[in-house]
């Protein structure tokens, strides 16, 4: 698992307990950008940020990142938000953005499930 001993969320997130991007959800999908900008080496990124970048060379949800790195979900939201601000990751928002779910989305889910059954 994390291999880094007990995690102190407050320290990892630099004292912030709220994501800067409130729209991040547990099912938001994250992928590290291959052609990401030169990242500041020391100041802004900690070890956990780098672990997220390493893990997310392909697409995973925030929840999966948290599970694989052994970090609390709230912490991962903050860290992914940082990486997003830096342009180091792409975040695909959870699909329903509107208040009401479109019928076509439910139909797509239904069709998918019936095919997998």
């Amino acid at each position, binding site marked *: *698992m994390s291999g880094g001993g007990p995690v102190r*969320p407050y320290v990892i997130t630099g004292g912030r307990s709220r994501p800067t991007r409130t729209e991040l*959800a*547990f*099912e*938001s*999908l994250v*992928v590290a950008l291959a052609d990401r900008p030169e990242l500041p080496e020391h100041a802004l990124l900690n070890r956990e940020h780098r672990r997220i970048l390493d*893990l997310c060379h*392909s*697409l*995973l*949800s925030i*929840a*999966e990142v*948290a*599970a*694989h790195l052994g970090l*609390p*979900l*709230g912490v991962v939201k903050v860290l992914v938000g940082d990486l997003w601000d830096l342009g180091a990751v792409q975040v*695909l*928002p*959870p*699909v*329903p953005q509107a208040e*009401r*779910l*479109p*019928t076509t*989305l*439910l*139909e*797509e*889910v*239904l*069709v*998918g*499930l*019936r*095919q*997998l*059954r």
Partner: protein
Amino acid sequence: MASANSADPVAGPPAAPQYLPPSVQGAVKILVTGPFGVGKTTLVGSLSEISPLRTEETMTAASSGVDDLTGRGGKTTTTVALDFGRITLNPRLALYLFGTPGQQRFWPLWDDLSRGALGAIAMVDLRRPDESFDVLGRLEEQQIPFAVAVNTFPDTPSYPEEELRSALDLLPGAPILYCDARDRRAAYDLLIDFVDHLYRTSVLEPQR
């Protein structure tokens, strides 16, 4: 997959990450909720294409009433284990299933979990239906579309639907479905029936 003889199907370190296809553009989620030991983890495991994963969320809540085991009052921080699974529905869309504890003390977590959810499957063990009253009330209050899923344990009593409906004090909108959460096919049928219900409701009441 989850080991059949383990008491806790998602214990132990997670397997290597199973990445989504790069064509996926977004994800939706459905909550699986219900009281302690009702079969949430089992259902998520039966449906998931990945080995079910577990994660933790810290929850700060004003402690109160029966759930205040500290006796200190004020704020308490609890760690809540959530287990979840995933189904890639098509090359563009993934579905996440979150096993969500239903007890009142976990409700602060529900705001985050339920935002954007397609709906919730509320599992009920008919040997102890009273333990589901809290969660059913909460789902109605939050106006989260839900279905009741009765798992059939060997000694589950059977009731006529009307009797069950009034015992659980269910509003007419919520269907009652049955399943054996351990069986993949039964779990899929349950999920399909639930999404079919959501779809029909959405077609009939576009202004929901």
